[in-house]
């Protein structure tokens, strides 16, 4: 059924459709309306779940780890400082193999205080062992939460997942969303019944002390699960297409890349703007494409190498900064393409921090810059900030 809703409403709807059993949430802008909406759904009986009003995000994640060990499907949502406060328990959820699914409404970290979107919060959690999905729009927010549960709870995976929607740009903006019937979702996403959960007939200890003679194997196994997730996400995408018609059959979406001379990698809501900018460039005869990164963890290295076999100049737009000569995604792309380094040019662009608009004009300039690199066969610099104010403008 088509409905008009914000990404936050879509996220709450997705939780309801997934029949989550335990919710633990703490308010933070711009996430708050997800937890409010779910409180309402639980209060009016639309969703049969236990809602724990925790006293912090750290406790939200801790509570869900406990609930998940008891075999409950678990849900929370957060942003920015809240995600940073959870940091310790994000490692715990992943290490404990608890498939918590959590929308993160991306927002800058302070100081300076800023409630608007950028990806520094989620990129800071890159190495916690969570799968990370980026949403371009509100429909994807709903869809990827359903898909994330299916993958996260797969017996071969058992890893938590965050579904990232850009603060305000998606979280508070109304868009048309196709909402599936809950019976259709039941068919796509079965009840949570993990092999590893508390069993009183076979009491075990979970989260034990492990000595150096075995600790590495635990970490390695987490890595294997993350690797397997690449295939499982594609399979879940294929099943999704069959069930609901929408296509999430790959970890990234290559838009007009087939004959492209240059392509721009971008994640989140700005991917939509980049597609429009690419269309404009195409109208002017410029062969440009967009690589929308839908899944950041596991990272689609092989897919990038495949694209780079024909597209030799690749720009990477990061809505985050790592205080080094690269944005986060750019570093990963370079890493993946290193073996092809002689033939492929990669340049990073930093922009859109703290909610700064990423405009079509910005992106068209980036495409022009990439085309110039392609013509000269040389990258002028590894990284460039875009749309900085006068006086510090480095364009």
């Amino acid at each position, binding site marked *: 059924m088509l409905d008009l809703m914000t990404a936050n409403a879509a996220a709450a709807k997705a939780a309801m459709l997934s029949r989550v059993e*335990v919710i633990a949430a703490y308010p933070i802008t711009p996430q708050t309306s997800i937890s409010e909406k779910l409180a309402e759904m639980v209060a009016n009986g639309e969703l049969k779940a236990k809602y724990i009003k925790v006293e912090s995000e750290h406790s939200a994640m801790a509570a869900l780890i406990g609930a998940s060990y008891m075999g409950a499907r678990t849900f929370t949502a957060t942003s920015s400082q809240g995600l940073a406060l959870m940091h310790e328990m994000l490692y715990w959820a992943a290490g404990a193999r608890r498939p918590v699914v959590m929308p993160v409404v991306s927002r800058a970290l302070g100081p300076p205080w800023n409630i608007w979107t950028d990806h520094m919060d989620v990129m800071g959690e890159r190495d916690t062992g969570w799968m990370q999905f980026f949403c371009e729009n509100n429909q994807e927010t709903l869809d990827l939460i359903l898909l994330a549960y299916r993958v996260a709870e797969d017996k071969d995976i058992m890893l938590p997942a965050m579904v990232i929607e850009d603060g305000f740009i998606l979280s508070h903006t109304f868009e048309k969303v196709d909402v599936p019937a809950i019976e259709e979702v039941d068919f796509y996403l079965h009840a949570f019944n993990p092999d590893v959960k508390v069993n009183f007939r076979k009491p075990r200890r979970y989260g034990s002390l492990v*000595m150096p003679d075995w600790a590495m194997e635990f970490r390695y196994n987490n890595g294997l699960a993350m690797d397997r997730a690449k295939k499982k996400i594609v399979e879940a995408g294929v099943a999704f297409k069959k069930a609901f018609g929408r296509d999430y059959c790959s970890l990234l979406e290559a838009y007009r890349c087939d004959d492209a001379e240059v392509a721009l990698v971008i994640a989140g809501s700005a991917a939509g703007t980049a597609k429009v900018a690419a269309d404009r460039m195409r109208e002017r005869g410029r062969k440009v494409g967009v690589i929308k990164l839908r899944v950041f963890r596991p990272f689609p290295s092989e897919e990038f190498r495949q694209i780079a076999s024909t597209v030799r100049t690749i720009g990477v737009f990061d809505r985050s900064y790592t205080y080094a000569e690269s944005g986060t995604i750019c570093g990963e792309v370079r890493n993946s393409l290193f073996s092809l380094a002689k033939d492929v040019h990669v340049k990073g662009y930093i922009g859109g921090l703290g909610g700064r608009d990423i405009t079509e004009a910005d992106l068209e300039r980036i495409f022009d810059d990439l085309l110039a690199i392609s013509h000269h066969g040389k990258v002028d610099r590894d990284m460039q900030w875009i749309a900085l104010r006068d006086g510090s403008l480095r364009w």
Partner: protein
Amino acid sequence: MPKFTIPKEELECKGHSGCAGCGATLLARYTLKALGPRTVVNVPACCWSVVQGVWPRAALKVPVIDHAFECTGAVSSGIRAALDIKGIEDVNVVGWAGDGGTVDIGLQALSGAVDRGTDMIYIMYDNEAYMNTGIQKSGCTPLYAWTNTTPGGPNGEWNLAPKKRIMEMLVVNGIVYGATVSIAYPEDLIAKLRKAKQIKGPKFIHALSSCPSGWKIDPSKSIEMARLATLTGIFPLYEVEHGKYALSKDLKSKPVEEYLKPQGRFKHLTPEMIAEIQRKVDEDYAALKSKCE
């Protein structure tokens, strides 16, 4: 012949890795005898993350969920929520945390769990310092005690803060049942835990847990020290039901010196310090008794 009232069932295995004379291992043994096998225990970072042994071995015959230092209240809420949604009513949710994990880093989550009315038995085994990391001062370290972070020195930098009044904090926070227990009084301990099991809502058990390594006592004196703590009035046994205090046994009969003197952590105490401790203990005990009337 007196009747042996302690249940025979053993839910703690032989062969844990606690120190010799560890009070907390006895406490767990009695606790599980009282609560039975339909109990799920959650444990933050504390001695008990180590005492249970190394994977793949485990020391308890009930399910245990280990987690991070400050989480016990929150994990307890999560476990109970999952049991509730699944309609499972006969399981005891036990939070099993040390004193630092309770009154310091875990206080926020514990207060939250009490505020939420979580149906749990939160047991603080109080060995009066961060013992697992090697004896550092916690909010439960007693006045003038030596620890590695209150080492004394020429300026007398012993622990200068009295113990946090955690029971009183939690009583006003809203626990439905609170009790102090000691390994020196196992029948009282078991009776209180059985009582806690029957009451719905947030329950808090403060268990003094003697620690030979940290208190600098001989392991063979562990129970004796726990008993002396009660007999000197330093650790009185009492209950609080819905805010109403009741002394379990009026056992205060000895001077504090008898408890302090044998312990290495108090060996530097001057007569003035001992007198001050005695005065405070007398005051606190009188205040407790007046609350119990």
